[in-house]
């Protein structure tokens, strides 16, 4: 007889009936083994990176390979942080993220509100133009975009990145789909009560939008923290750089710079992974939920 969860499994390729036999149990064991391998492959690389950060530079690639460092000296993290003046880049990232959050929610949200609910003349054209832009690779527009930013003298200014977050087709689509799903009768009732389009937004739509604003905020937070190409091109002065730009800069200058070794880069990399992973652990449901419903990966 079988006990526990398998005896209650009613779905899938094998159900509780099959698990009364021996062979399916063996297969199930193999499945568990497979998933354990997946877990190891997923988790081991970042963990080995974290451990290697504690090693001395000359020991990182020592033979034979050792996963664990000789000692865990946590003061090293603080030392790297101050040596690299990392607080500065961290603050820059936070500034960029704060502005990007506001812009992403306000501008994409308002545009989606217009195309999904207000529907002025031409809203269909706007909608398809935004959607069409999702198909075009970003690099196609990066040169002229960079050019425009230079002409407006926005280089080394975080505002360029804030505004860029306000034109995000993915976040627009998330808002648009959500607004479409709001009950129409509610809008009608509000309009009959004499709500103007602006009050309709503040009194009815905005209060109902907390869930979608949350989702867009999480995505913006993660995307802005990880964003690289535009910040790299726009932020040329070291003092304005974000964490990701600085990390790339460290990696490309590593062979020529005597200021820091490989271990410093590894420590900084580990630090850079903590915020998104923490975000994921806190908002697991929202993140995995919208991946599987929208099919959107980044």
């Amino acid at each position, binding site marked *: 007889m079988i006990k526990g969860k398998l005896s209650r499994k009613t779905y899938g390729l*094998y159900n509780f009936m099959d698990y009364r036999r021996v062979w399916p149990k063996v297969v199930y064991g193999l499945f568990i083994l497979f998933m354990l391998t997946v*877990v190891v492959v*997923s988790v081991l690389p*970042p963990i080995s990176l974290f451990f290697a950060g504690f090693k001395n530079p000359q020991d990182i690639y020592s033979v034979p390979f050792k996963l664990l460092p000789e000692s865990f000296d946590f003061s090293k993290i603080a030392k790297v942080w101050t040596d690299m003046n990392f607080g500065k880049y961290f603050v820059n990232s936070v500034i960029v993220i704060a502005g990007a959050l506001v812009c992403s929610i306000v501008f994409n949200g308002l*545009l989606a509100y217009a195309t999904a609910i207000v529907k002025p003349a031409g809203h269909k054209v706007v909608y398809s133009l935004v959607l069409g*832009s999702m*198909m075009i690779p970003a690099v196609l527009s990066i*040169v002229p975009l960079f050019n425009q930013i230079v002409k407006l003298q926005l280089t080394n200014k975080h505002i360029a990145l804030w505004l860029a977050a306000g034109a995000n087709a993915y976040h627009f689509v998330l808002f648009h789909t959500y607004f479409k799903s709001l009950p129409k009768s509610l809008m009608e009732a509000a309009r009959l009560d004499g709500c103007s389009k602006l009050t309709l937004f503040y009194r009815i739509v905005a209060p109902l939008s907390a869930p979608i604003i949350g989702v867009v905020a999480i995505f913006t937070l993660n995307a802005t923290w990880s964003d690289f190409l535009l910040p790299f091109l726009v932020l040329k002065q070291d003092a304005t750089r974000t964490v990701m730009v600085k990390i790339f800069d460290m990696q490309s200058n590593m062979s020529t710079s005597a200021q820091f070794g490989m271990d410093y880069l590894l420590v900084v*990399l580990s630090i850079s992974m903590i915020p998104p992973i923490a975000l994921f652990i806190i908002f697991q449901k929202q993140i995995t939920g919208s991946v599987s419903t929208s099919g959107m990966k980044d």
Partner: protein
Amino acid sequence: MLPSLVLFSFFVWVPLLSNISLSLYTTKGFEKIQFSGLENYLAVFKDDLFVGALLNTCEYAFWSVIIGFLAPVIMAIILNEIVHFKGFFRVCAYLPNMVPGIAAAILWTFLFDPSAGSMVNSIIVALGKEPSLLIDDSDLSIILIIIAMTWKGAGATMLIYLASLQSIDSTYYEAARLDGANFMQRLRYVTIPHLLPNISTLFVLQIISVFQVFYEPMVMLDGGTDASISLMLLSYNYAFKDSKSGYSAATGVILAAIIIAFTLLYNFVQKKLSPQSE
């Protein structure tokens, strides 16, 4: 609405159009000099680097289909069968997706380091083989980059398949079981047909996204070697390293054309296959 439109114009639509026009001009720095028609296009097709990058990009797509495409399907089917620690497995499989792109690329540069003491080399040695040059081996670099990309992306794709698998009504399996179908037959006649729409959509999305591979060769191979440079990276190098922004624009337009062609082909095949929908 107006300010949002201004932003979209500034960040998306105008750059797009000016890039197309830029590709038709001779350039100096980032400035247009003189209208030259399709000269930039002809020039890039004569450039060995461009032809190499085009072939490399196709090679990326090929390996991405072989390695990166099947992994999430298999992971989803197996995870859907599992009842113990399901949440834990799902979270761990998705975790790499949260690692920022640049950080993931540097992480794998570290694991794929050609020195004998790198993690991957020590595994190879433990298996009784000679240490490999890994990322510095021009025959291997594309495959290794695809492995790194699969590591990051597979968990998210798996979740999409998993959601689809969970929507299969168990009566289908019940019926198959009553008809005496074994495990493989149930997989073949119930599970796979149900996943097919997702599989075809994600297949096209994967090809589209791998055609835009950029960070990985740039970071993992210091700006890309001849054996690994992709069209996106070449377009970037033309613009920001070689000051040939006309070439860069032309390369970008060609890349976009390939991607749009794929999308249209996909829509066409989709319509042929399912005439009842739409």
